[in-house]
């Protein structure tokens, strides 16, 4: 049994690599999609309340109430939302790794069932 588990563990370690962690494997482009507000936004003017600007990282609308805040369109990345978008459903570049791990796990399971059955027969 110990041999079977060791064999499974070695296979699992060598097959399922750390490249599953989105924070570690995401491209700079993916991580850089988070909106960074430029300093040069003086053109907004106090009297303009709903002005859209060409923004280097995305579009936003200023708060109609006139505060310094600005509002993004629904679904557009906003400040401090890395945790939200660094989840598997949003990171399609790891979906292939999910398939890879699924295949490895099924193969491991098949190997374990065959090996444990074989050992039980030979007891």
């Amino acid at each position: 049994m110990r041999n079977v588990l060791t064999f499974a563990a070695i296979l699992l370690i060598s097959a399922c690599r750390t490249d599953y962690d989105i924070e570690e494997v995401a491209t700079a482009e993916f991580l850089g999609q988070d909106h960074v507000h430029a300093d040069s936004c003086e053109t907004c003017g106090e009297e303009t309340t709903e002005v859209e600007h060409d923004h280097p990282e995305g579009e936003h609308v200023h708060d109609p109430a006139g505060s310094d805040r600005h509002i993004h369109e629904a679904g557009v990345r906003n400040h401090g939302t890395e945790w939200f978008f660094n989840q598997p459903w949003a990171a399609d570049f790891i979906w292939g790794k999910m398939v890879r791990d699924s295949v490895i796990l099924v193969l491991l399971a098949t190997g374990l069932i065959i090996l444990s059955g074989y050992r039980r027969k030979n007891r």
Partner: protein
Amino acid sequence: MRPVMTFALMTLRSLLRRRTIWGISIVILIALVGIGQVPGYGVSNQGRFMLDFGLFGLEIGTLLLAIGLASNIYPRDRERKTVMPIIAVPLSRGQYLMGRFVGAALVQAAAMLAGCLGLMVILMLNEHAIPPDLFPATGLLIVEGWFLLAVVFFFSFWTSPPLNAPLTILLFIVSQMSVSGFVGLLPTAPGIMRTLRLLLPHMDVFHIKDPIAHGMDVPGLYFLLAMVYGLSYMVFMLAVALAVFRKRDLK
């Protein structure tokens, strides 16, 4: 296959006779009703919070159900010595495990579907829209529950029931952590922690409540892949559980 299904239905009937399943299901429904009673204070997107808390409650419910349903099955069979006559003639050890697992999985799926319908009713009563992804999300929760059931069965073959629950809860918690977060638990041994994390499942693939609560579309392909991943891990855990069970001396 037929002996397994017959044994699974026997398991289902015996589980429905227990008070545990009803107790946990009632707690889940009371929690959902409680979420529906939280005053909105005029907040326009109150439905988002209801969905968020509701799906979180269902996820915790699936963990509690897995522990409540499966942690006692094998220890009880062994204590009452019913496992020996069962696996002596009519069933192999693999068929025993599959029968018990399928019976518990059916109960778990039914409870999750009831929880999903309860959440839909609460959303409708509070005049909030029901997101179209709620049913696929419930499907993902059911698969997560089946995976947890397999984990509980695995632990039940070599630990006592009081130890089974904390071990499963611990696995549930650490499996949600990212690699960097897990290594951060013991920064002095990053190599060991990284290797340990590799052996644990990535249960963050089941996290779907955030986009649903915020009204974002989740591709159908993702639901499919996440379910395949969860089912594959479930099969692997059942294979490990079977390997342990085959090794056990029941005399």
